């Protein structure tokens, strides 16, 4: 028998909030409309904790902790907007921009991009490190969708939605460090992938313009994410 979930109280940015003890700091902050930026996190998918944008200061720890992967606890003191955190956030965003080729003005996701939105919100008006501009070619082999690895931030939302929701696990990440890339099957062209069902879930969860529908031009991408909580809910009821 499972014991009933306890309710704990904690402080986020000097605000007294209450939460179930199995919730994460991020969930509680969102319930209370406290802003914590995220990129890899998406409701309905498993926690990944890779983008590090949700780092917060937590009492009793010298390290910054990822709010998406940290459970709440009684009397926890959480700070989400200290100068240290704001500086980290900005640097993380700048490094994401410098790593690949993120030129918003010619991007299909211009105006619908989570990276762009966060950069605007966090005041990233220039990048203090040099751009890497790696040479990465587009994959246009799929009849319906295209992959532009130059816009990819390796949040692995596509990998998780394909594995956890669609169940195909066509996507995964290859290589390590700066050489990481999302791939389909044995790095086969997407259109030749045998496991891909062309369901398009990966395209709709992509936070940037890395995955998009064929035929969309600059700033024409629109993400439909309603399916994700719906599918999760429907599956949950069947268990």
């Amino acid at each position, binding site marked *: 028998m499972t014991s009933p979930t306890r309710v704990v109280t904690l402080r986020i940015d000097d605000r007294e909030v209450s939460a179930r003890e199995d919730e994460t700091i991020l969930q509680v902050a969102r319930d209370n409309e406290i802003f914590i930026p995220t990129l890899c996190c998406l409701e309905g998918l498993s926690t990944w904790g890779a983008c590090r944008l949700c780092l917060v200061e937590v009492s009793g720890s010298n390290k910054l902790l990822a709010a998406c992967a940290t459970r709440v606890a009684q009397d926890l003191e959480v700070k989400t907007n200290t100068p240290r955190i704001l500086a980290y956030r900005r640097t993380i965003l700048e490094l994401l921009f410098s790593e690949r080729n993120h030129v918003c003005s010619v991007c299909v996701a211009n105006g619908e991009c989570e990276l762009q939105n966060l950069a605007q919100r966090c005041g990233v008006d220039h990048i203090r490190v040099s751009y890497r501009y790696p040479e990465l070619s587009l994959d246009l082999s799929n009849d319906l969708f295209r992959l532009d690895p130059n816009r990819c931030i390796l949040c692995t939302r596509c990998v998780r939605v394909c594995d956890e929701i669609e169940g195909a696990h066509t*996507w995964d*990440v*290859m290589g390590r460090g700066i050489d990481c890339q999302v791939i389909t*099957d*044995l790095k086969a062209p997407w259109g030749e992938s045998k496991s891909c069902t062309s369901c398009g879930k990966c395209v709709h969860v992509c936070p940037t313009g890395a995955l998009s529908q064929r035929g969309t031009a600059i700033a024409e991408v629109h993400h439909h994410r309603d399916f994700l909580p719906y599918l999760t809910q429907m599956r949950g009821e069947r268990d």
Partner: protein
Amino acid sequence: MCPQTVRNEAPSDDKRWKIINATMRRNGDDSHALIETLHSVQETFGYLDDVALSYVAKSLRTPLSRVYGVATFYHFFTLKPQGEHSCVVCTGTACHIKGAQALLSAIKGSFGVAPGETTADNKLSVISARCIGSCGLAPAVVIDGNVMGNLSPQTLVARVEREIG
């Protein structure tokens, strides 16, 4: 899920597939045996090609992309056939400071191969590694499994030339 009753057919008549099958069977043909099985393929065939990766993925009921991801994550695995002799140049911190880059450029100059490449005559493969744990010998190189340290570019090139004859 239905239990797997029939073993997948090996990609060819090559007897070496029996070694791979034995490794997988020893681990219950389960997906957690992926790294172990890839080790077995690497040691048996010398490299991992698409045929082997597909066979392992199918046999262990693991997605192709995950198999490829694991195979490219670890430096131990190679997707291309290796030359007769191998030269692993350590580029860890200690070796870097003691001149690992000079060793790599000397090899590039003498044999025309960069890390990850094999000479056209298939004699020599050059690999770079992040610290082989022999920092006291920096700059260190492993030639055909033998660790050698305190190398200058000239002695390294001479040594490699002797090895590949």
